[in-house]
């Protein structure tokens, strides 16, 4: 297995503002993010040879991308892997380039959640009507990991919630420096603790924003990238792991980690040649759909040692000025979470960080960046990607 390390470059990226974009249509979100990426790459739209579009609930087929962009008769595929559909679009696009099938391709992620009452169009998520099940909101699954994490490490409810609140406070702080973020306000631990309980033990401020948004990337070969511009990033490795529902089927599954996080990270590290993520990753964008998940991710991805997540949070390791800044753009928590768009939004931030274009939230000496994008509830999909600067 040779892998695709350093075989694909990202030369342009775009990302709309995320949020409750009542006056933006799905087409607007696709067009705005893609045009920004095309302009950033310095290419003409006619040079795009293929496309991948990631969306969970906002339409079917590749025409979601071709219609607004008028990509005339180029091959476009819609990919869907729940919330990691964005990373899946990039991953498939990268393989299209690495295989030699295409020279220049586009990957776009887009979601229009706020055209649906309460923000989630469950009717578009088959085939659950074919099963009888206890169906609950996503928050409940992560809340169950929080209950177990607190239990396992002997944290009282207050201790556990305070620990999680610190993660929310950090991401809100970072979000204030992200012009395109959905939520841009500083909060305190008290804000989180006093917010309404939604999914015990998680409160409103433990949850990410439900947002509209679009994001896009232009991928090409390193050779073409070099001919077009000075600064670009290279894909170092991808890992995708799809679970088969183990947390709910096996009684030895502990709920204080998520196996798909570990497996996807291992695959990405292997391809990227990362031996010690704790030291080698300079900046990370991770899938903090709920604060507890960011805590699990620290440990699952080896950014913290097992059981040391709490200590590292207390010591500020993941703050913008810490040893390993996580979610410098505010993460899902504050940048918002338009499902299919989130994966590419993460890469957008890593791209800006590695190219030192992140403004006030710039992480010093960021050479290797990671994005982590979960798809579904525990026991489902996780996509991890590692990126590096071209020089």
């Amino acid at each position, binding site marked *: 297995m040779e892998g695709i390390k350093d075989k694909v470059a990202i030369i342009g990226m775009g990302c709309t503002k995320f949020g409750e974009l009542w006056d933006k249509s799905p087409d607007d979100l696709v067009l705005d993010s893609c045009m920004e990426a095309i302009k950033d790459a310095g290419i003409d739209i006619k040079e795009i040879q293929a496309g991948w579009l990631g969306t969970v609930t906002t339409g079917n087929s590749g025409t979601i991308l071709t219609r607004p962009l008028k990509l005339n008769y180029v091959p476009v595929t819609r990919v869907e892997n729940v919330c990691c559909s964005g990373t899946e679009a990039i991953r498939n696009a990268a393989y299209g380039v690495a295989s030699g099938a295409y020279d220049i391709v586009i990957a776009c992620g887009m979601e229009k959640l706020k055209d649906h009452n309460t923000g989630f169009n*469950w*009717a578009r998520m088959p085939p*659950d*009507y*074919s*099963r*009888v*099940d*206890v*169906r*609950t*909101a996503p*928050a*409940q*699954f992560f*809340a*169950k*990991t*929080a*209950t*177990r994490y607190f*239990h396992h490490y002997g944290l009282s409810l207050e201790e556990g919630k305070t620990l999680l609140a610190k993660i929310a406070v950090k991401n809100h702080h970072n979000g204030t420096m992200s012009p395109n973020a959905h939520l841009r306000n500083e909060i305190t631990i008290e804000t989180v603790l006093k917010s*309404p*309980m*939604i*999914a*015990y*033990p*998680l409160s409103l401020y433990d949850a990410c924003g439900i947002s509209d948004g679009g994001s896009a990337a232009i991928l090409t070969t390193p050779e073409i990238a070099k001919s077009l511009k000075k600064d670009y990033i290279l894909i170092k490795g991808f890992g995708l792991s799809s679970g*088969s*529902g*183990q947390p*709910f*089927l*096996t*009684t030895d*599954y502990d*709920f204080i980690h998520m196996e798909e996080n570990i497996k996807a990270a291992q695959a990405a590290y292997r391809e990227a040649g990362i031996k010690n993520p704790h030291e080698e990753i300079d900046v990370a964008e991770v899938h903090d759909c709920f604060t507890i998940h960011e805590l699990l991710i620290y440990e699952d991805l080896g950014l913290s040692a097992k059981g040391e997540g709490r200590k590292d949070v207390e010591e500020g390791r993941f703050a913008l000025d810490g040893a390993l800044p996580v979610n410098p753009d505010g993460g899902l928590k504050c940048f918002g979470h338009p499902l299919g768009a989130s994966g590419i939004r993460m890469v957008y931030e890593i791209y800006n960080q590695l190219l030192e274009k992140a403004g006030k939230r710039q992480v010093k000496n960021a050479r290797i960046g990671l994005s982590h994008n979960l798809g579904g509830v525990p026991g489902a999909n996780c996509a991890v990607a590692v990126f590096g600067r071209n020089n």
Partner: protein
Amino acid sequence: MVGITSYGSYIPLWRMGGKAMGMKTDRAVACFDEDSITMAVAAGENCLKGSDRTLIDKVFFASTTFPYKEKQGAAVVAAACDLPQGVGTADIANSLKGGTSALLSAFDSVAAKSAKKVMVAAADTRMGLPMEQHERTFGDGAAAFVIGDTDVAAEIEASYSVSCDILDIWRTQDDKFVRFWEARFGLTEGYNKIAAQAVAGLMKKCNLQPSDFSKLVFYTPDPKSSAGLAKRLGFDPNTQLQNPMLEVLGNTGASFALIQLAAALDEAKPGDRILLLGYGDGADAISIKVTEQIDKIRNKNGVKAYLDSKKMIPAYTTYLLWRGLLNPEHEKIYYSGYQENTAVPALYRERSRILTLCGSKCKVCGTVQFPPQRVCIKCGSVDQYDEVKLSDKKATVFTYSMDYMSMVDQPCVLPIVDFEGGGRAEVYMTDKDVKEVKVGMEVEMTFRKIFFDEGIYHYYWKAMPVRFL
């Protein structure tokens, strides 16, 4: 000899009453996720516990509050009680004496040798108009009996029935709440005359005297009338009349006489003779003789245990919410969080999983999995499994969350439970006290409604705190 070979009752955990409700008595209230079917299943489970279910060949289910007007309740009860597919089922509907009529039909089937064992279940959840007296005096509950001809614990000796068309209390096809004529009419022309005719007819038929009976189990429309009836018929209500439990249970409709019968059997001695009276559009009087077998089938969790195990609903509005009376325009009732309607063919093909909580046990590595998996999650064996029923297993809460955005059930407790003997399931928890929910708590499974949508009641098993330790 044909008679009762096992029995069990079920009374919901919840009570409405006390000063806060302006009530001098309590009444049993079915939880929002219970109905006549789920209560019949609970009584059936209580009745069948530890017995060989494959021997049952008929089920009669009596109620005046079937969830469906067209679609049988007995079939759901039979399936959820894990009875064989070859069982004959029938609903006995529309009459308050449905319970005793079902018992007599079961007797006839066994006596005629068209069945070996028949399970009779009766359950009701009737409603009076909001704030009207019946709302306070009705109760919800169920009882179940198995009628057979071997190891009989209470022989059904004889019966006498009277039919009478009278509008004392009724509902039409479209009524939610009972209609009634003034109680004095119903009593003087109805209960006092018709019930008396049935009892007198039975005693004459069998040549029995009042002193031949040790216990009178009488349906009664109010706390006093059965005592008056007994007295006029020459009985001593003080020593012979079974307490109708109206002040702690309420009038449970078609199951009322049968819950009282279960209570009488809880305390009966061999040789006791019980006079059972069912009333409604006529009356059934039945003479039952208790045998030596009674001590062997005596139910550990009897009526008294159910009555003692109770929680008060916090407010009258809770009752209204639970009965769907606060938002009558809602077509959908999502008790807990949200649910998508399940395709009807899926309900059908997954019926064993839904109705008996069937999981799979890998024949190769022994791992129990729920829902059933064709490919084993542990060893990867394909189609190498036995079905294993989980609905009767005790379980432990592994972890949980609570949904504060849910509607009727708030907060809705969502545990992941690990079953004794293996298997894990994500379920709802009902009949819980949120303050008592914790990792490691013991639970048992209970058959409930999980939601209602597009005219379909979705039944499933929920976890609940172990009710009797």
